[in-house]
C-alpha cells in the first residue's frame, strides 16, 4: 500500500512517505559493500546518481533480521518497511497493514522491548534488533495468556486488528502488570478496532492481570 494511487497522474503533486524515503540518499545507511558492488543493486533509472553528494539507489539489498528468536536473510529495496518485509518476504502475515501511517496499530511489533508500528520502520533500520511479532507469542500450541483471554472474552470479531491489539497489550502488561481501566485505554490508544471490541479487550486484560487495581 502507498498513497500513490490518486497522484499517479501527477508525479510531482504529492510526496508519499515512501517515495520520499526512496529519494533520500543511502549515505547514512550501513550497506554491506558486497551488496553495493554485487549485481543486486540496480541504479534507479528515474533518478540517475549525481556526480557528487549522496548516491541514490533503488533495487534490492541483502539484510538480516532477527525475528521471534530466529535470524532471517532477505533482500529488500531500501524503501521497504519492516512490515512489508515481514509480510511480503517472510510470509509472516499476522501483522497487518491498515492505515500505512502509524495511526492504527494493526502492524504493531515489539522491537528491542518497545512497541513500534512496523509500517513506520524501514526494514534496513530493523537490522540488529530483536523483533517479536504476533507469530512469536505462543509457544507451539500453548497460547500466551493474553491470547487465551482474548478468545475467552471474545475480544475479537473480524480479528484484523487483533494481532496489533494483542502486541500492544503484551507491551503494556510487561511494564504495568496490573493496569487500571484508564491505563489500559492509554496504552491501547494507538490502536483502532473497527468492529468495536474495546470493552471486551479491557475485560480480557483484567482477567490476565488478575483483576484491575483501580
Amino acid at each position, binding site marked *: *500500500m*502507498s*498513497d*500513490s*494511487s*490518486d*497522484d*499517479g*497522474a501527477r*508525479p510531482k*503533486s504529492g510526496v508519499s512517505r515512501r*517515495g520520499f524515503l526512496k529519494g533520500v540518499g543511502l549515505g547514512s545507511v550501513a550497506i554491506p559493500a558486497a551488496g553495493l558492488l554485487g549485481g543486486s543493486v540496480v541504479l534507479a533509472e528515474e533518478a540517475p546518481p549525481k556526480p557528487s553528494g549522496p548516491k541514490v539507489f533503488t533495487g534490492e539489498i541483502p539484510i538480516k533480521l532477527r525475528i521471534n528468536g530466529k535470524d532471517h536473510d532477505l533482500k529488500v*529495496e531500501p524503501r521497504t518497511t519492516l512490515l*512489508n518485509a515481514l*509480510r*511480503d518476504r517472510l510470509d*509472516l*502475515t*499476522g*501483522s*497487518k*497493514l*491498515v492505515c*500505512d*501511517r502509524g*495511526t*492504527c496499530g494493526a502492524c504493531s511489533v515489539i522491537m528491542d522491548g518497545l512497541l513500534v508500528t512496523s509500517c513506520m520502520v524501514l526494514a534496513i533500520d530493523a537490522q540488529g534488533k530483536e523483533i517479536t*511479532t*504476533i*507469530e512469536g*507469542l*505462543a509457544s507451539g500450541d500453548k*497460547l500466551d495468556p493474553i*491470547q487465551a483471554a*482474548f*478468545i475467552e472474552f*471474545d475480544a*475479537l*470479531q*473480524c*480479528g*484484523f*486488528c*487483533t*494481532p496489533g491489539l494483542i502486541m500492544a497489550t503484551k507491551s503494556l502488561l510487561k511494564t504495568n502488570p496490573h493496569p487500571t481501566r484508564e491505563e489500559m*485505554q*492509554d496504552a*491501547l*490508544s494507538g490502536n*483502532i*478496532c*473497527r*468492529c*468495536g*471490541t*474495546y*470493552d*471486551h*479487550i*479491557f475485560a480480557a486484560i483484567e482477567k490476565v492481570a488478575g483483576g484491575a487495581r483501580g
Partner: protein
Amino acid sequence: MTEKTVRVGFSGDSKELKINPPDTSPPAWDLDSKLAVVGTNVPRVDGPDKVTGRAKYTYDINLPGMLYGRILRSPHAAAIVKSVDTAAAMKMPGVKALVFAFDESKIGEKKLRYAGDEILAIAADSPERADDAVRAVKIEYDPQPFVVDLDDAMKADAPIVNDGKSNVRGKNPRGDAAAVDAKLAGSSKKIEATFRTQVQTHSALETHGLVVAPDGDGIKVWASTQGVFSVRDGLSSNLGLKAEQVRVISTFVGGGFGAKFGPGVEGVLCTKLARQANAPVKLMLTRKEEHLAVGNRPNSLQKVKLGADSTGKLTAISATTFGTGGVGGGAGCTIPAIYNLNRDATYKAESDVFTNAGSSAAMRAPGHPQGIFAMEQSMDMLAYELGLDPLEFRMLNDDNPVRRAQFNLGAKEIGWPNRPKVAGGGKADGPLKRGMGVAGTLWYAGGGKDAKADVEIGKGGEVTVYQGAQDIGTGFKTVLAILVAEELGLKPEDITVRAADSRFPYGPGSGGSTTTPTVAPAVHAAAYAAKRKLFEALATTWQVKPDDISAKDGKVFVASDPSKSLPFKKACAALTADKVTGSADREANYDGYRGNTAGCQFAEVEVDTETGVVRVLRVVAVQDAGRIINKLCSESQISGGVIQGLSYALFEDRIMDKSAGKMVNANFMEYKIAGPKDCPEIKSIVLDVANGRNSVGAMGLGEAPVIPTAAAIANAIYNAIGVRIFELPMTPDKIIAALARKEGAKTA
C-alpha cells in the same frame, strides 16, 4: 405435513402457534425447548487462528510468482481523459500487465466523475514497483465543472453530475401531505426541525481486494467479501465463465459493514490482470482508495414535523429527506415505523442528490441511523414540549411488548430516575454536566430461503458441517458449530466447520442481518438428517426403531433400555459406509411471533461546557434477535454496534473540499474513528425471544445495535446542557456554537 403446536415469544409475552412444517424438518425449537449449547457463551471456533496471526485473510495470501496490482484513479472530481501514455510505465522494471477500467477506444471522450474514479490497473512483481509504474503513466485531463456538496448540488445552476436536467432524483412520496399537515395543524403540540447527518465511510480494517490465480480454464479467487457467491457470480458473468470455473474462498474477512458485495471494479481489474499476465495477482486497495471509492453511508438533510394530542398520543409525522450517495448510489433515509402511527398519519418524501463523489453502498442498517437520529430527537423534543418524561412518552406510543420490556430493563440498568428532570438542570462539576438519553429501534431480519447445508458424520465419529457463506466477524462459523453440536448432543469443539468457499453449499451474502436466520434452519435440518442416518444404522444393530434413539451429552442411546448406550464416537462405528451426509435446503418461513426485532439504547454523557467535548460515560443496549444462538458473540455484536454508533455520533466525517472536489481526510489520521479511550462502559443485554418462523427461530443481529446510539447520545446531550444538536457528528465546535446561541438568546 402434520400440524404441530409451538409456543413462541418471551417471558413477558407468549402465544401458541399452529405450524405445518414438512415431515423432514427437525422438531422446531420453541419457548419451552431446553437447549444445551444454543444460547450459551461459546468462544469463537476461529479464535485461536485469529489471536496467533495464523488466520489467512485475503490480504495474507502469498502465492509463488504472485504479482501485485495497483489502480490508477482520477485526481479530478470531473474530467475528460484526453490521452493516456502508458509506454514509460510498461518499461518500468517488474511490470507485467496493464488493463483499462473502461473501453480504451473511449479515450478522448471518457468522463471521470469523481476523484477516485478508476482509470487503469497495473501488475508488477512487487507492491513498490506497481506503485512506481502507476506513477509513470502520463495522462492528459480536461477538467470539467463539478459539485461535491449536497446543498450546492440541489441548486438550479449546479453542474450536472450524471445525465438529465437536475441532480435531484425524487422518489414517489408515501402518504397524503395535505391530510398529514391538517392532522399536524390540529395537534395540541407539534415540533418541526431540520436534521443533518454526515457521510460515513465503512472503513473495514481489511480493505477491499482479491487475489486471483489462473486455475486450469478458470480462476481461483480469494476475496475479502461479504458475498462469496456474489463474487463468484459477478466474476463469471463478467468474464463469460461458467460459475463452476470460478472458485471463491473467503475464510477470513477483515470486516465489511455492507460495502463488500460482488467483485467490484477492483475484482474485475484484478482478474483481467491475472489473465493477461497468466500469473496470480493480489490487488488490495489502499486506505485512501477505501475511503474514496468503495462505498459510504450517504449523508442526509431531514425536515421533520411531528405532532401529539393533549394526552401524549402521536397524531402525525411528516418527513422530507434528501441525501447524497455520490455519483451513483441511492441515499435512502429511513425513518422506521417504531411508534403507533397509522399510514394515513404518515407522509414521507425522499430524494437522492447526485454529487461528484464516490458512490454510497449499503452500510450497516442502511438509512436507519440517519432516520432514527431525526426521529428519536423529534420524539424527545415533543416529550419536553408536552412536559412528559421522554421514556414515558415513548411507552405511551409503543405497543410492542418486546420493546416495552426492553425500555423497562434498560431504564433500570442505567438508573433512568437519576437523570436531570429539567434539561441542563443537573448538578454541574465545574464545567462538566451530565445527562441521559434514550432511543428505540427495530430491525426486520427473519431470513429467507437461500441456503443449503451439508453435515457429514464419519465412521470414526468426526462431524463436519459445510456451508459456503462467509464469516465477516459476526461469529457465523461458530453458529454453525453450535447448531450441529446441539442437534447431535455434542460440544461445538467436536464439530469441524468448513465455510466460506463457493464449492460448499450455497449461502447468502452477509447483508440485512440475514446470514444466521437464513442459514441456521438449513444447518439444523442437515444435522437432523445426518443424525437420522446414524440412527437408522444403529437401529439395525440394536434391533430398535430409529425413533427410539436419542443423542445427548456426547452419547447415543435408547432411553428405555440403558444397555443400549454408546459414546458418540463409538456409535458411529455402526455406520456401514465411511460416512453419511445429511443435506438440506432452507424451507420457507412459516408464521412466527413477530416479523421484526426490537431494541433500545440508553446513554449517559458528560459534556464539558467550556470545551464542548462530549464524553459518553455509559451505554445500556437492549436488543432482541429472536433466538440467540451464541450469547457471547451476540453481546460482541451489540457492543460493537454501540461503539460504531458512538463513532458516527461524535467523530466520523468524510470532509470534501468544495473547491477542489476532493476528500481531504482520506486516511485514519484525520478521519477519526472511536478508539479505546472513547469507549464507554457498555452493558449489552440480549433479550432472547423464541420467534418461531422456522425450526430455529433466530433473527438477525448485525445491524440493529448501530441504529439508535447517535440518537440516544444526542438526547443525552440535550438532557445534560439543555441545548439540542441537530447535526452529526456532534463535535465540540457544534456544542460550543449551540451553547453560545442559547446564551445569546437569553441575553437578547
